[in-house]
């Protein structure tokens, strides 16, 4: 046998493809975390008084809290005073058009392949589709494309900082209503120091004419990225939202603690897709992003629907449970997840489906893929309140192991307080088989391509849920994330 090891080693030597840092001048908040930091951020953003008060309240609360330790994660202590909480690319205050954007920032986005300039996406597949991008570079949203077309449809798509100034009533009505300030340690921290993020409002009966997208990228050293996203779909509205993330390679760990709140009114539907590709650290577990994120949807209205789809390939540590509170009668929650861990990565991810309304339905499909010496945990809660008649839930958790040193864990919590509920749970764990690998290789695929093909097949049910342009990217990412994992 020619050596499989040599190939595996060559593949391991391949580095994180997005590990470049951009040299641009940045404005930092003073290092460390105090009320002054919170005031600095709020002042930088010209925020109204109520917003500052809201932040300060969160900060004072945060000081009384302790970081959660119930997840199956080994989290080194984080020194919150040894980080910057705000980094802003230095540039002219306002941008009239994309052409005025700092060329270095633009080049970064081009390297990432983000369609920041207006462009037709994937012509010929489903007709020309458009994606509007709100790009967050470190802490500031630098450009929002397609604004005019969205405005004509009545859709508000802005950075959250702008929304706080321009639509204070709307923001104030919903901010912190789905994820309250005291929800958890990281959500509280985010409430105090969130730097930017995205706000979307889709008015009654409007079907958002394009996919909305935010691309997050952490660039500056030692900055946490705390974005805040709020999406409200009014009665009968529909919106599909894409979130993509990358970060340059750094030796130090960078904290990312985002909060995403979704609200769906009667008959509204929100589809939220994430492809998370933060720097995972090197093969020894040095560096990488700590991704401690709180995402929750409130299906407030009757027959409303929220669908979360996530492909998680990056981050050193992932702690994330996109959830649905199914309050409206007949509302539907869905969670489709692929989580890949390689080398020393750790992921504890899953969902919570809280059934409050009658005839509410939820579907959970989780595909965990572990390689190297990583640990991958699915943690999920299905709760049926006493008032919730005729609830249905279907949960499927599949784990695929690619090495004999990795771990896959499934931790389902089921709390049913109403006897009419129908809850189904299926779980499987399998190892990628030598038969499959050899079969694929004997047809011409090298070891990496064979693994990527088999893994993509395993994750297919979830990948199918992604919008077309994201699905292609996600498939490639799965292959790249697992390079060097076989042999």
């Amino acid at each position, binding site marked *: *046998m*020619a050596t*499989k090891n040599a*190939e595996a080693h060559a593949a391991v030597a391949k580095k994180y493809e997005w590990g470049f840092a951009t040299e641009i001048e940045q404005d930092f908040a003073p290092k460390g975390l105090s009320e002054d930091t919170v005031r600095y951020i709020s002042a930088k953003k010209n925020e109204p008084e109520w917003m500052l008060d809201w932040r300060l309240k969160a900060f004072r609360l945060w000081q009384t809290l302790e970081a959660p330790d119930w997840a199956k994660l080994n989290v080194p202590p984080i020194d919150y005073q040894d980080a910057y909480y705000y980094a802003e690319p230095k540039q002219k205050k306002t941008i009239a058009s994309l052409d005025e954007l700092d060329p270095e920032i633009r080049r970064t986005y081009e390297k990432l392949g983000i369609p920041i300039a207006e462009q037709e996406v994937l012509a010929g597949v489903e007709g020309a589709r458009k994606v509007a991008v709100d790009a967050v570079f470190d802490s500031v949203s630098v450009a929002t494309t397609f604004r005019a077309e969205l405005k004509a449809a009545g859709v508000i798509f802005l950075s959250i900082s702008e929304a706080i100034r321009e639509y204070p009533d709307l923001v104030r009505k919903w901010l912190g209503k789905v994820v309250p300030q005291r929800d958890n340690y990281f959500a509280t921290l985010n409430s105090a120091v969130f730097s930017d993020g995205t706000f979307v409002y889709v008015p009654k009966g409007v079907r958002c004419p394009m996919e909305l997208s935010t691309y997050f990228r952490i660039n500056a050293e030692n900055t946490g990225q705390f974005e805040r996203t709020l999406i409200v779909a009014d009665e009968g509205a529909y919106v599909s939202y894409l979130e993509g993330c990358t970060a340059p390679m750094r030796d130090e760990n960078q904290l990312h603690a985002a909060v995403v709140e979704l609200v769906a009114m009667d008959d509204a539907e929100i589809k939220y897709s994430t492809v998370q590709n933060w720097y995972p650290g090197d093969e020894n577990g040095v560096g990488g992003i700590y991704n401690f994120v709180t995402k929750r949807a409130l299906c407030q209205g009757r027959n409303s629907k929220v669908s979360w789809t996530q492909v998680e390939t990056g981050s050193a540590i992932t702690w994330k449970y996109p959830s649905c509170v199914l309050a409206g009668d007949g509302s539907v929650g869905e969670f489709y997840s692929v989580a890949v861990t390689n080398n020393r990565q750790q992921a504890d991810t899953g969902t919570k489906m809280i059934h409050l309304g009658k005839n509410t339905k939820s579907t959970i499909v989780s595909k965990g893929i572990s390689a190297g010496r990583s640990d991958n945990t699915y943690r999920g809660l299905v709760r049926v309140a006493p008032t919730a008649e005729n609830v249905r839930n279907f949960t499927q958790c599949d784990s695929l192991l690619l090495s004999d040193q990795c771990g896959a864990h499934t931790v389902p919590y089921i709390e049913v307080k109403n006897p009419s509920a129908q809850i189904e749970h299926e779980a499987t764990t399998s190892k990628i*088989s*030598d*038969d*499959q690998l*050899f*079969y*694929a*290789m*004997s*047809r*011409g*695929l*090298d*070891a990496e*391509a*064979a693994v990527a*093909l*088999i893994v*993509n*097949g*395993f*994750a*297919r*049910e979830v990948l199918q849920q992604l919008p077309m342009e994201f699905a292609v990217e996600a498939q490639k990412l799965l292959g790249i994330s697992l390079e060097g994992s076989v042999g």
Partner: protein
Amino acid sequence: MLQIENLHAEIDGKEILKGLSLEVNAGEIHAIMGPNGAGKSTLGYVLGGRPGYEVTAGSITFNGEDLLEKEPHERAAAGVFLGFQYPVEIPGVSNVQFLRESLNAQRAQRGEKPLSGAEFLKLARAQADALGLQHDMLKRPVNVGFSGGEKKRNEMVQMGIIDPAFAILDETDSGLDIDALRIVGDGINRIMRRPDKAVLLITHYQRLLDYVQPDRVHVLADGRITRSGGPELALQLEREGYVGVGAEVAA
């Protein structure tokens, strides 16, 4: 085309092939027959490069190149096709996707342009038609939920699409009914019976050889070739059994 000399191979430290020599020329079809446990499938796997099958002595030369130096996917690109006795299921991956990626990976290794989706689909449909495989089977996940006969037919569709120079077919006839046997036999003749191609048919029984006439027949017993002859040897085996032709003798 293929020269195997004094091949010794073991799995988990147990020697299975014990000095096997064989030469196959372009334009020839050879049949390898032999009792269970003689090492027939091991020979197929060693030719395909399956990890775990360790060659301890001897050589395999394919078109002048050392085959043992190559990874399985490199052997495929060089023109070697292994038809599996038990074709493997790959859930979630459609036949079309699997074969297009495989074929284009081979073409890339040979410095050829990839086939477009449309070009590939045309090729795949023509091969499926020739082997009586429904087009919707091409869209289904690789071998998942296929009957034994469908799996074997699917192997032949793959062979037709990949169009190899040399095919090792490991008990392609097992699990086939009479009609399917004829279709598969016709497929082998159509795809592989060419002056520039060759086939190694590994089989237990004469019945496939009724449809695919071998030029040479070899008896493999206890890890080496104990007898070789023309097509009449297969008929003699069918009549007299392996004992009758001395295959049990580990000389």
